[in-house]
């Protein structure tokens, strides 16, 4: 087994993983979150993210429908590798039943596209503030 995502406390301080095959979306999110001080890494498939070397990220933001698995399966895959990073799922057509399933699977949040910016910024701001207190970007 490859020593990919490691579970350690010294985890990716301000790293945020974005998993979404939609390039326009990832470019937009990367800009948004970089402005908050996040070191963003973009992946287009779950497999690519799961194989990423280095410590676990501060947060994973994933589209619900990935080419190789669902975002809910991605949560299970991370947890089975002992990676505890919070996962936020984004969905184009959010259904209540799916949202409930995602939350039961342990998602931190389930946000309907396209209006994801405000909530994502809030979550990531909070998560990063937790690791680097007093380093919150203003405005």
């Amino acid at each position: 087994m490859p020593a990919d995502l490691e579970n350690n406390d010294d985890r990716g301080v301000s790293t945020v993983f974005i998993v979404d095959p939609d390039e326009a979306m990832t470019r937009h999110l990367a800009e948004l979150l970089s402005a908050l001080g996040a070191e963003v890494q973009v992946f287009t498939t779950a497999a690519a993210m799961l194989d990423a070397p280095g410590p676990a990220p501060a947060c994973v933001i994933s589209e619900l429908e990935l080419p190789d698995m669902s975002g809910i399966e991605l949560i299970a895959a991370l947890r089975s590798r002992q990676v505890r990073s919070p996962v936020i799922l984004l969905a184009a057509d959010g259904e209540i039943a799916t949202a409930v399933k995602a939350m039961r699977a342990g998602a931190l949040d389930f946000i309907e596209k396209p209006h994801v910016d405000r909530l994502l910024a809030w979550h990531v701001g909070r998560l990063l503030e937790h690791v680097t207190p007093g380093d919150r970007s203003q405005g």
Partner: protein
Amino acid sequence: MKEKPATVFVVDDDEAVRTSLRLLLKSVGLPVETFASAQEFLDQFDPGRAGCLVLDIRMPGMSGLELQQHLNDRHSIMPIVFITGHGDVPMAVEAMQAGAVDFIQKPFRDQDLIDRINRALEKDREMRGELRERDEIRRRMSQLTPREREVLELVTQGKANKVIAGDLNVSQRTVEIHRARVMEKMGANSLAHLVRMVIEAHRED
């Protein structure tokens, strides 16, 4: 005193819904109590009773989400299954984030609701079992002498008897005796078991 059986508490302002749920749940042998408002439920709420809550999210007066908040404030562990006529995703997510075990949209199939209620009751049983176990571990810990508690603390930090003897300024033999007493009083069959119990005892309720 005999504990009351696990009960399904239904809170819905619609009398027709309350009646049909009462009949449905009775038909599968589940004890049911119904309430016409969140306040009515809260007024008689007893955290010691086993069961689950089937809660309408939108009601005049206190909403289902507000009732959930009140119960959380009281450290209730009763699992909540929300039912809603016209919910949306953010509402469902909020309810789940606040600890609901499920959220189901009307109209639903009877069996679907029963399955979810059974799952909630199972969760309630598990959590009550854990709480009982934790209480028992704490009871046992409270019976340790101050010296035994010190030894317990050091042993579960992974320290060897020799090191503990040095720390407490006693003989190694004395540590061994205390350690054996701790294991016995705690009912631990191994060091790993003892460590698990200590972690459990320190967990917040």
